[in-house]
């Protein structure tokens, strides 16, 4: 952390400490500038994406801090220091957490696209129609899905409610560790509140999990309604697509929100969607981003590509993603 200029330290130590802090930054700047100039991905992330992920991460950390240490609400300095400590620890850079934030960004983007393009109101979409279903599991899951979907983006806390148990567990304890380091002491109240927060978290209350439960119970019975984002709603549509192609929900979101429409087209083919329905889904979710070139690639390629080849390709993507999320963490820890 930057030397605290408010504290009385001898002037030469103060000067050296400040000089060293900034001198060391010279090497780090090489890495930062190189990453900005020569990003490793094919598509350079937009400023909007970076800002969205950054503010999402800050919101997530801040919400967890407030939940485990309510007295922090007005302490801007500690909140900022905690964020800095976590940033420097490398934890906030870990792929599973960034992947989660990117998936939320994709969710938001696709949701906006769908709302603009769709003529079906939320109240007429499948989750609302299932509220009074005779199967209590279906009715309950539909209720949870609608409630969780409605809460999305309303508060900072809504973000950590959406984290998977594994990721929430990891994040909460990292935040607790950072707070304890800053306080210089073990605070059993903070630990107790962290335990409570984790114990109260129910995976079944997450929108995408409720959607997956609905897909589980509906199965092929509602294939027609589940096959269109307009009638199924985004969560349920993505869940059905993910379940049928063997990938996870967040992976499906990120593939659909990719710079090109080709991954989404491949997913649609892997699911065996007829060309006309695939085109409709494409327009609904990607209509505002489609270029003439992309539409022509879709037009020429969709009927030639076979479902088997598409499925095999999607399966490979799933394996690559799983390896990346698991392995990058291990290597990053210097194992």
């Amino acid at each position, binding site marked *: 952390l930057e030397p605290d200029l408010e504290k009385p330290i001898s002037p030469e130590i103060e000067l050296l400490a400040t000089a060293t802090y900034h001198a060391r930054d010279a090497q780090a700047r090489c890495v930062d500038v190189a990453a900005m100039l020569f990003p490793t991905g094919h598509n350079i992330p937009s400023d909007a994406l970076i800002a969205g992920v950054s503010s999402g991460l800050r919101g997530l950390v801040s919400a967890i801090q407030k939940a485990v240490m309510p007295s922090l609400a007005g302490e801007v300095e500690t909140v900022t220091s905690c964020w800095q400590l976590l940033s420097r620890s490398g934890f906030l850079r870990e792929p599973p957490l960034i992947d989660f934030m990117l998936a939320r960004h994709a969710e938001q983007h696709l949701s906006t696209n769908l709302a603009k393009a769709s003529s079906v109101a939320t109240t007429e979409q499948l989750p609302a129609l299932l509220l009074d279903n*005779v199967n209590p599991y279906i009715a309950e899951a539909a209720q949870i899905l609608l409630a969780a979907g409605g809460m999305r983006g309303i508060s900072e806390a809504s973000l950590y409610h959406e984290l998977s148990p594994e990721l929430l567990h990891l994040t909460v304890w990292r935040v607790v560790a950072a707070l304890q380091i800053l306080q210089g002491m073990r605070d059993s109240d903070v630990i107790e509140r962290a335990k409570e927060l984790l114990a109260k978290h129910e995976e079944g209350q997450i929108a995408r999990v409720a959607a997956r439960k609905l897909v*589980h119970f509906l*199965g092929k019975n509602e294939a027609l309604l589940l096959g269109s984002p307009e009638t199924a709603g985004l969560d349920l549509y993505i869940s059905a697509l993910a379940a049928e192609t063997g990938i996870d929900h967040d992976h499906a979101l990120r593939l659909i929100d990719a710079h090109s429409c080709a991954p989404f087209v491949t997913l649609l083919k892997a699911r065996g969607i007829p060309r006309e329905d695939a085109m409709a889904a494409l327009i609904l979710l990607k209509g505002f981003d489609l270029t003439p070139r992309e539409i022509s690639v879709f037009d020429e390629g969709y009927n030639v590509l076979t479902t088997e080849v598409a499925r095999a390709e999607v399966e490979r993507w799933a394996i690559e993603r799983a390896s990346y999320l698991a392995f990058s963490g291990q290597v990053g820890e*210097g194992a």
Partner: protein
Amino acid sequence: MGMSPILTQPVTGEVGPEGHLIRADEPLRRLHLRAGGIDGGTLAIPGLLALVRLTQKLKMRLARNVRVAQGEDDFELWIETAYYEGLVSLSIQGWEAFLETDDHQDHINSFTLAAGVFSLQFDQAMRLIASGGAVPADFDRKNFGQEIFDILALDDDQTAALKANVAKHALHRELSILLSGGGNAYGFEANPVFAKDGNFTGYICAFSPIRPEQAAPRQPTAPSVLFAQQLAPALRQPLGRIIANAETIGSKLQGPIRENYAVYAKDIADAARHLVALVDDLGDLEAVERPDFSTARDSIELGDLARRVAGLLALKAADHQITIITPHMDDKITASAEFRRVLQILLNLVTNAIRYSPDGTEVRIQIAERADMAEISVQDQGAGVSDADQEKIFAKFERLGRTGDGGSGLGLYISRRLARFMGGDLTVETLEQGGAKFTLTLPKE
């Protein structure tokens, strides 16, 4: 809307801290018994047990779909778990399919009767999920949930063949191999099983006893085999705990400690990590020194491989402000060798380059082709390797006098052996401008 029959009551059960199924509604109990479990014993349904373990670890409430194999078919269950003082309660919903399929054991039984004395069934992930017939009395029930590779004495070719099947999901193939244990030798035939929708769901293996003279001249239980199969897993677990605990102490999560104690804790964690790396290296050493060791032939685009390695080690390099430079996207050279092994060699070379280079320097990965060979080289800006040491460095346990840097002295020895097994070589030279350049040559495709 057409629906499955509705069950408003979930099937429930309770699992103890050690994974024992201590209470279960009848359908769950039946499923557990069919999967090879016993009343009050460890939950024998792998997918379910994994979810229970995760619930115990996180102490949180989970809700997930779990795939369960039963006979020829796979079923998906919706399961919600909750944790309370070491116990995990299970609530299984969407149970319909199981109630309708009470006789699936018939398949495995008939298979067993026709083909051998007993049979073992493995799921898509090659984990043991069921047994049938006269399973030997000394067969350890802890094997349920373990991977086939951990249970049977497979050689590298057989392991590769089975793994290839798993990856491709549908390859009819029969294997005859030997299971040695408990004083008896068995031959077995592994047959892939497919669900009604054509998806690969695992293997059923039928075992029959064979006379001792039929048994392949397998290497006697050499210490090295014992190490890889038994000692290595036994060592990794306690070492993992040492690392985790030392890191916890070092990070002062449990309260402030004296700074030098935090440094000691970091030293302990580093030493344990070094031991884990050594355990891994010794396992590889055992493999490459076996007379029957062989490698597969994959088509490897070396530029792509270089970029993967750079991506995997980017964080490690960034810690030392080291930049990894990879070949241009348009440069493509394809080699014919085993992908996994080449990746292992390249990771080893780049890790070494990062380890022995000054902070803030560059590590450059380049690809080239000469006649019928493809080359991939790793060049650093470190101290280089003197002429006298350029052969010594590839010797077993050779550290060139270095200590305390996390190396085992086996990495380059293993890498060169692997390279030569694949029809190539691994060499080193010192560059005029300083730094070492390791070059891996492989047959071109």
